[in-house]
């Protein structure tokens, strides 16, 4: 719409060529948009074998620092090849730019980034891992002490932050955990139905759904969901606070970041996760019940009767009992990764990802360990 003055970017192009004996003719606009064409033209020049070369720059109509860099590079290159080069007829204002470029030339030269050798890489990796392990241990220790202290003196607990955590990480997670565990219940019953029907042992769908959900699957599904939902949020929140120096402000006010930030989050999750697991158990079993009555002709009453017989209370208790430990792992890993963020924005992303991967990994490892220990005790 608006009538623009002709942009300076469509200026005449830059040219070079050999004009006469020992004369390099430079013409046109030596500015950044023209430089790639100019470099190609320079590569195609048939250099005369004369020891002396004059650059006729009278026809250069525009020049910026980029153009001056190219001209300077050219002169340097020709001189290295043993020629005497003179620049003639360059306008004074362009000569000024060229002077600025050449006077800074000695100071520049970016340091070449050298790849360290394998020994150095191993050394760096080992020292990095050691440092990380030490700081992780330190963090776990600090948090445990903090939690222990505040449990002994509950007045130090930030109740508002705790309640807010319960709402955000517990209550608000109800729809998604409910839906997912319902679907998992449906899937397990449905897959089991095929096999059970072959043997005519339809009623065992109750054992299948009840034991697997209550003991293993519900706690794990909830923990994985919460690791993705809350653990990542903890890392990102604390990390951003670190980047914006909010953590430093907290410390200079004489407050402990562990007590202020870590404790409410850990407590909230330790309370919320078992509750969410009970809820997930209920909906998962309900999903299994629906499929049982639909596909296997096991009515709701039969299902519930069998449930009482087949599924011992300990399965439920073992599932619920694992949940607080899962919560502890998720919250601590999330907060720890948040505190590890040092630099800028991309660091936040990296550590948030790490927090989710690490907490899910540790939750599953812990779960496997529980299985082994419980099988020793024959539970």
């Amino acid at each position: 719409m608006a009538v623009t003055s002709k942009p300076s970017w469509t200026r005449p192009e830059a040219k070079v060529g050999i004009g006469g004996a020992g004369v390099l003719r430079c013409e046109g606009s030596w500015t950044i948009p023209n430089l790639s064409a100019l470099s190609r033209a320079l590569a195609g020049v048939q250099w005369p074998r004369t020891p002396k070369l004059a650059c006729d720059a009278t026809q250069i109509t525009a020049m910026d620092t980029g153009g001056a860099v190219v001209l300077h590079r050219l002169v340097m290159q020709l001189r290295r090849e043993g020629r005497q080069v003179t620049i003639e007829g360059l306008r004074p204002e362009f000569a000024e730019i060229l002077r600025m470029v050449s006077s800074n030339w000695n100071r520049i030269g970016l340091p070449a980034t050298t790849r360290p050798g394998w020994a150095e890489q191993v050394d760096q990796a080992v020292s990095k891992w050691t440092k990380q392990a030490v700081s992780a241990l330190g963090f776990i220790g600090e948090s445990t002490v903090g939690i222990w202290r505040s449990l002994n003196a509950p007045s130090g607990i930030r109740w508002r932050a705790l309640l807010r955590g319960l709402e955000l990480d517990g209550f608000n997670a109800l729809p998604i955990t409910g839906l997912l565990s319902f679907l998992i219940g449906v899937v397990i019953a449905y897959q089991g139905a095929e096999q059970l029907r072959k043997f005519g042992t339809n009623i065992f769908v109750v054992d299948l759904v009840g034991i697997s959900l209550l003991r293993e699957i519900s706690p794990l599904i909830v923990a994985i969901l919460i690791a993705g939902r809350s653990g990542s949020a903890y890392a990102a929140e604390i990390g951003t606070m670190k980047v914006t120096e909010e953590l430093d402000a907290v410390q200079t006010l004489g407050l402990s970041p562990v007590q202020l930030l870590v404790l409410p989050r850990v407590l909230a999750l330790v309370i919320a996760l078992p509750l969410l697991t009970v809820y997930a158990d209920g909906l998962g079993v309900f999903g299994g019940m629906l499929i049982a009555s639909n596909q296997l002709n096991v009515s709701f009453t039969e299902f519930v009767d069998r449930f009482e017989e087949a599924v011992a209370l300990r399965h439920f208790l073992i599932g619920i009992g694992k949940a607080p430990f899962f919560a502890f792992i998720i919250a601590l890993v999330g907060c720890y990764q948040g505190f590890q963020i040092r630099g800028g924005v991309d660091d936040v992303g990296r550590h948030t990802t790490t927090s989710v991967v690490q907490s899910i990994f540790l939750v599953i490892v812990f779960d496997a360990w529980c299985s082994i220990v419980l099988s020793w005790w024959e539970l």
Partner: protein
Amino acid sequence: MTPTLAGVETPIIEVSHVFTRFGETVVHKDVSLTVRRGEVFAIAGGNGCGKSTLMREIVGLQEPTSGVVRLFGIESWQLREGRHHEVHRRFGVMFQQGALFSSLTLAENVAAPLKEHTRLSPDVIRDIVALKIASVGLPADSAAKYPNELSGGMRRRAALARAIVMDPELLFLDEPTAGLDPMIAAGFDELVLQLKALLGLTVVMVTHDLDSLWRIADRVAVLGDGTVLGIGTMRELSRSDDPLIREYFHGPRGRAAEGQHGST
């Protein structure tokens, strides 16, 4: 040196009757000003008077509630539509916090506009980048560092190097000297003057720094009360009768700066 263009008489920036409102807060009631080619134009005024907002409107990051802002004769808000790539190459912006890309090293940050907008060979890019890093006074060994490893002043200079790497005709500086020590701030002023002399740069800067205003600004617009209270050279403004301008320039710091620069 920017060659003279056909439309040299059209102002490089034209702000006419701009009105800006954020919810209930009215920032600009009626702001009009023009910036001419080749001058150092400063926008001054108290905190919260909408200096930075005006700059964001000029570079097309924000739409004024009403009124027209033109940059190189094109309405600024249309710059975001992507039809005006060539305009984006013609100006550089240095943001207040530097706004360096934190995943790139200093050298990569400075090289970013060249890599996006040109097809230069890596060698030439490397030389131009090294030259710009040297010319803003950064040591060569800082080139491989990431922004979070640099001090505040270095980050500011790196941001300037990135803003000028394309040799733009127009350079925007948002509070370039805020938070810098007096020596570096003075060096910054020198650098701007040098660039202006060498490359014929037009500079628009938002600043509170009265020393800077006296030293390098050709013209100053004082914003206040949602309008432009006055435009002119520092000498003219310091003689203004407007009570708000007087308050701004004749506080204790204003008098000190004037005593130093105004009498020469």
